[in-house]
């Protein structure tokens, strides 16, 4: 479905990704793990057209997308929950959700999806007229996720969806991800919460210093010594 081949990218003259190869198949949950600064977020940003790669190519359903601007990539059905959320903080919850729908299809089903989201996240229903910036971190994270779902993604990219959340909220996020996946959405996620992530993931990639250092099924990675090593160095 999505394939990265030899992708190199970075900021200004500083290269962060030194050739990333990975792929995501239809219907999978794929996890990308690795320590801070390994280049996970840069990878996510490059897939979505926020950054453009200097070398290599990214294809989606067989077509090259790495030269396209972000809005065309969203048009193709790839939607991201960015790491720092990037919510429209001065706008209401409803406005944020409505802005999530940009493709013709998503706009056509907008009202329906909106009702569904408010149903899925009761907290958002309670605060729907509130400005997004005034909500708690957990609520904001829910909103970011719901906003992305309003875009009716075929491939949902989650960058640290549970960061800074209380444990019970982390559980809630993972529940939602599984539910979305059951509805047929392919998921690519970056997470700090390695154990939880690898339990739900079909496959995982470990990233180190701007390259993929290993890949295996979620359960295999979880038992792999080197994962523990990657995080604790023991």
């Amino acid at each position: 479905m999505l394939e990265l081949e030899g992708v190199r990218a970075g900021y200004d003259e500083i290269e962060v990704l030194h050739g990333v190869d990975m792929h995501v198949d239809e219907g999978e949950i794929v996890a990308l793990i690795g320590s801070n600064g390994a280049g996970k977020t840069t990878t996510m940003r490059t897939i979505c057209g926020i950054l453009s790669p200097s070398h290599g190519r990214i294809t989606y359903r067989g077509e090259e997308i790495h030269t396209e601007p972000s809005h065309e990539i969203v048009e193709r059905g790839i939607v991201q929950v960015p790491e720092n959320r990037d919510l429209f903080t001065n706008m209401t919850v409803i406005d944020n959700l409505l802005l999530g729908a940009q493709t013709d299809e998503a706009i056509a089903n907008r009202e329906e999806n909106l009702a569904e989201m408010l149903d899925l996240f009761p907290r958002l229903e309670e605060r729907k007229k509130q400005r997004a910036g005034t909500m708690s971190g957990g609520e904001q994270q829910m909103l970011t996720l719901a906003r992305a779902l309003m875009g009716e993604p075929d491939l949902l990219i989650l960058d640290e969806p549970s960061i800074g959340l209380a444990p019970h909220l982390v559980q809630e996020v993972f529940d939602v991800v599984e539910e979305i996946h059951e509805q047929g959405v392919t998921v690519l996620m970056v997470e700090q919460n390695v154990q939880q992530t690898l339990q739900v993931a079909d496959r995982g990639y470990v990233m180190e210093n701007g390259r993929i250092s290993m890949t295996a099924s979620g359960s295999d990675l979880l038992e792999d010594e080197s994962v523990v090593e990657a995080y604790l160095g023991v």
Partner: protein
Amino acid sequence: MTNMDHQSPERDGETLLTVEGVGKRFSGLQALQDVDMTVNSGEIIGLIGPNGAGKTTLFNCISGAFPPTSGTVTLEGNVISGLPAHKVARAGLARTFQITRPLEELTVVENAMVGAHIHTRRRQEAREIALENLEFVGLSDRAEEEAGELTVGAQKRLELARAISTRPKILLLDEIMAGLTPQESNQMLGLFRQLRERGTSLLIIEHDMKAIMNISDYVKVLDQGQGIAFGKPNEVVEDDRVIEAYIGGFDVDA
């Protein structure tokens, strides 16, 4: 629990830096809460913790980027918390940044000279100090290039050279090895040891666990803005709370 006494008698040297009950609140978010730690002269202390644990925030509170909302930081007995960054630097504490901040359109040697001018207004003298430190980090052959054109690895070394040109008593290094090749990381570790031999204390944030466990005398672990462990590297990695903070899972959660 290895949250042992910071002033344990087995630690050598005099107390140089003391962090006492430091907390930092950003509109509604408690980024740091009641953090205590000390660094003695000649020590290398590793500061670790998962993403968002508040490590860089603690660095910023110590180095004067912003004042802590509670608690105090003292350097050699003088309170430095609340002082602007340039005064903290002049008091003998220098730092590097997680995302390098080279003075891009200045040359490499000029970057280091900015640090050296803390001691002298004479350009020639500052240049000599700067070149000496560039030599130390292995950048002297690129002294006349523009700093913005260096690779990440070289920029990290340049930041180190710039910081040590102020001849600090203590050096705060924020993920200086992230993005370096294994050889570069090894060289960096060598530089750390040499700096310690010169009497400079180091407080290091690092994600490369192998490196940090290898080099640190003691390790301080932060999680969600609070100190959860302090101790020798081999003790800390055995700590359940530390493992849980890194690998996650709810079954062991408090």
